[in-house]
C-alpha cells in the first residue's frame, strides 16, 4: 500500500518547550479504546489542552491562536514511555507532518516513520534558539528538505543537517511501505524458517 510522501515541507511551527514529553501526555490511555486510526487528533495533548470540565486551557499553545502550523517543536526526549502508535496518529490527525526535537524515544521514532511523520533531530543549542525564536515571532517559517536532509529557518537562512536512516528516507520520499517490502521477501522468510528447523534438529 502506498503511503503519503514526504519531500519538502515549508511551514510555521507550534512550540512546546518541555522535556521528556511522554506518549501518555500526547494521548492519554483513556482515549485508546478505539479500533480505527481516526479521530485521535481531537484528543492530542488532551489533559494539557482542556481542564477537568472540558474547557480549553488558554495557556496551552494549541489553544493560542497566535501559533499554528504543520511542524511541532518540542524539548528533548520527545515521545518516551508507552509504545502506543495512537500518539503518532494523534499528532498527524491534528495536522502535523514533522516533529522537531533534539532527541526522540526509539519506539516513537519508528512509529513516526511508519506513518509518514518526520522526526527531525537538531542540536540542543539550535533547538533552544529555535524555540525562543518561535516564541518571539510565531510566524517564523521553517523549511524541511528531506532529500538534502536539511532543516532551515527560512527568515535567517540558518541551516542544520539532520540524520535519517537511508532506507527510511527512501521510503518517505517515495511513499513506500515496510510491509510491501516484507511481503515481497516471504520466500526468503520461509527459507530462513526451514534452515532454522534443520539447525534445531542437528
Amino acid at each position, binding site marked *: *500500500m502506498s503511503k503519503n510522501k514526504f519531500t519538502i515541507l515549508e511551514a510555521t511551527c507550534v512550540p512546546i*518547550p*518541555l*522535556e*521528556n514529553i*511522554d506518549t*501518555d*501526555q500526547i494521548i*492519554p*490511555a*483513556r482515549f*485508546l*479504546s*478505539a*479500533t*480505527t*486510526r481516526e479521530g485521535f487528533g481531537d484528543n492530542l495533548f488532551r*489533559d494539557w489542552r482542556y481542564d*477537568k470540565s472540558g474547557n480549553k486551557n488558554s495557556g496551552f499553545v494549541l489553544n493560542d491562536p497566535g501559533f499554528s502550523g504543520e511542524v511541532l517543536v518540542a*524539548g*528533548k*526526549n520527545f515521545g*518516551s*514511555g*508507552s*509504545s*502506543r*502508535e*495512537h500518539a*503518532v496518529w494523534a499528532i498527524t490527525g491534528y495536522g502535523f507532518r514533522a516533529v522537531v526535537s533534539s*532527541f526522540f*524515544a*526509539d*519506539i516513537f521514532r*519508528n*512509529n513516526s516513520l*511508519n*506513518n509518514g511523520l518526520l522526526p527531525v533531530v537538531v542540536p540542543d543549542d539550535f533547538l533552544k534558539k529555535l524555540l525562543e525564536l518561535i516564541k518571539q515571532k510565531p510566524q517564523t517559517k521553517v523549511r524541511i528538505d528531506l532529500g538534502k536532509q536539511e532543516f532551515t529557518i527560512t527568515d535567517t537562512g540558518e541551516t542544520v543537517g539532520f540524520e535519517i*536512516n*537511508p*532506507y*527510511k528516507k527512501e521510503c518517505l520520499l517515495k511513499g513506500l511501505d*515496510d*510491509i510491501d*517490502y*516484507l*511481503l515481497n*521477501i*516471504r520466500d*526468503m*522468510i520461509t527459507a*530462513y*524458517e526451514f534452515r*532454522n528447523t534443520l539447525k*534445531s534438529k542437528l
Partner: protein
Amino acid sequence: MEPKTLFDKIWDSHVVRSIEGGPDVLYIDQHLIHEVTSPQAFEGLRQRGITVFRPGKTVATADHNIPTKDQHLTIRDELSRLQVEKLEQNCRENGIEYFGLNHPKNGIVHVVGPELGYTLPGTTIVCGDSHTSTHGAFGTIAFGIGTSEVEMVLATQCIMQPRPKRMRITVNGRLHRAVTSKDIILYIISRLSTGGATGYFVEYSGKTIESLSMEARMTVCNMSIEMGARGGLIAPDHSTYEYLNRIPAVANSNDFKSLLLRWRHLSSDEGAVFDKEMVFDAGDIKPMITYGTNPGMGMSIDGTIPEADDKKGGNSSFLKSLDYMGFKPGVKILGHPVDYVFLGSCTNGRIEDLRAFASFVEGRRKAPGITALIVPGSKKVEQQAINEGLDKILHDAGFELRQPGCSSCLAMNEDKVPAGKYAVSTSNRNFEGRQGPGARTMLVSPLTAAAVAITGRITDPRDLLKD
C-alpha cells in the same frame, strides 16, 4: 572468532536479511498481542487482502482495559467491550490462540508469556506494548513495537529494526534487607535518567543480578524501557532452567534436553565489547521512591527532593513536574500522607510480589484512609495466591484480592486514582495522569507499598520489618 555479546548472538541468529544502509529484517519467534494495540493491525491486513502468515506464533490475551471485579459479567464500558470483542473475533478468524476474560490462562500479557512457557531463552519476542522488555529476564531479545509493526509481524513474522547499541549494567554486592529488585531498577533509572539508555539494548549482569529469582529479574528487565532502552536481558542460568523446568508445556516438550544444551551457550563471551558499561554497588541501594512525573525522578525513600538545576532536565520541566506532584525542591517526602496503594502490573503483579506484600501486612491492619487495589497479574497468579491462603491474609488485614488485569497501572478501566490524590504504586510509570487525570503517582516496591498501606504515609519499609 571475535567475542560476541549475548545480544548480538541472538540478534545475528534471527537476521533474515540485512538491508544496505538500513534496518535488519529480524525474524520473530513469538508474537504477543492484546486488545488495545492490535485492532488497527488486523484492519490493515484486511485492507491488503492478506491473512496472518504464521498464526501459531502469535498468542493473544485481553488485559489492558478490562475490569478487575465481576469479570463474569459483561464489560460495562462500551468501547472497551467492543475492543475485547474485536480481539476475540480477529483471533477466531485468523486461527490465533486467545485467552479471554475468565480463561484460566488469561492475564497481563507479560505475566502470561513467561508463566505459560512462551518465553524461552535465545528467542525473539515482540508485542505492541513497551514493557515487552520483561521477557528479557530469560535471555530473550524482547521489545515493544507500534501497531504498524504488529501488522508487519502478523503479515510476515518479521520486523524491520535497526540494530541498537549495547550497554552492560553490572550490579555487584549484597542487597540490604527490604531492598528489592524494584529498588535496584528504580535506582539504576534514577542514575541514568528517563532517556539515558535510549538507542541501547541493555544486558544486566553481576552477582546481585544472578542472585535474583526469575520473578525479580522480570521486574528489572520490565523497566528497561523507563530509561529509554530498547530492551534489557539477563543471561540464562540454573535459575532460568529451574523456572522453565516447572512449566509442563516446556519441561514435557520432546526437545527440552537439547534446548537445555543450546541455552548453555547463551552468555556474552569473555572480552565482548559493549558500547557503554555501567557498574553499581548493591550496597548503595536503599528502598526507592519517585517524587516526579517520570521514572528517572527517583530517590531513596529517606532522601530529599533535589534542587532545580539544568542537570535535572531543565528548570521549567523539572518545576512543572514537582508542581503537578504538589512537592517542592529540597524537601523530604517521608511521612507524607497517601490516599491510594496499588499492588500489581506487569512490573510487580507476580506471585512473589503478592507474597511479599501479604507477609508484610500479615497480622497488621490497613490504614483507614487508604484505598488499596491489590491486583494479581494473571489467573494463574490469582489461583496460586488463593491456594497459598494469601487472599485470607490480605482479607484479615483489610485488603481485597481483585481479579487480574493491567488495572490502575494505566487506568483504562475503572481502577482510577482521583485528581490530586497521592498514590503509591508498584507499577512502572508515574507520568502525569497515568493513573487517572490529575492523579499523583509515586513508584515503589511491593514492600514499600505494604508499609505505606499500613501507616497511610510514606514509610520506610526497613522501619517496620518483622524479625
